[in-house]
């Protein structure tokens, strides 16, 4: 078959991605991140079922700098995936497709996820 030079559609890297597109790919990234985070959740529960010594090991890791960083990231990923997931459900219902509305919702999701993470961590230190 002869090679025909057809015009190519501009690919991903030549666009400045709108916030909604960035939120969309972040939704997927946080989903994958949360998937790996379930290792930590499972460790927590298995350690608690195994006894005080195993639980102590988990607590040591959760209290380390690496552990705190991972837990903080997990909290944010969960907050983002929750809020953006809600937005996806609204889309499924047919709401919020307008360009301006979608941009506003993206801002709300990004801001809300940061706010929720900070609230959870401050509250965790208080209680």
């Amino acid at each position, binding site marked *: 078959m002869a090679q025909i030079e057809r015009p190519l559609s501009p690919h991903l890297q030549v666009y400045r991605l709108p916030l909604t597109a960035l939120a969309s790919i972040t939704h997927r990234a946080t*989903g994958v991140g949360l998937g790996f985070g*379930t*290792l930590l959740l499972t460790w927590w*529960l298995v350690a608690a079922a195994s006894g005080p010594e195993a*639980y102590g090991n988990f607590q040591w890791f959760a209290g380390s700098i690496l552990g705190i960083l991972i837990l903080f990231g997990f909290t944010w990923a*969960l907050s983002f995936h*929750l809020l953006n997931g809600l937005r996806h*459900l609204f889309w499924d219902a047919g709401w919020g497709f307008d360009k301006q509305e979608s941009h506003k919702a993206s801002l709300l999701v990004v801001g809300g996820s940061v706010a929720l993470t900070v609230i959870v961590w401050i509250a*965790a230190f208080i209680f």
Partner: protein
Amino acid sequence: MASPRSSLRSPLGAVRGLGSAKDGTHHWWLQRVTAIALVPLTIWFLASLVVLSGSSYEVFTAWVAQPLVAVLLGLFVGVGFWHLKLGAQVVIEDYIQAESTKIIVSMLVNFATVLLGAAAIFSILKIAI
């Protein structure tokens, strides 16, 4: 692949068994059902994390042992891993081209989610019962 003109097989025969088995939206729908179930469960879990952060072995196991907590935690873990399995499958299908790698990786993800889910739920039951 042979061009359709060189084959005596009818177009219908070529696609039979490859197309929709009348469950085309099943995966999509289950992803939504599990997502909706996870909304209240996740809010509850985040609120619980606030109270539980840094709690001792005694405090944590006593919390898990409460019947309502054990049930909600079991549901959060079970539905969460189910949602994860469905989501990971889509990611794998989108990014992995080679059919054999695709099958192996998605199978590994299925095994991992079931293994982790079983370990988590067994642990909850062991503490609670």
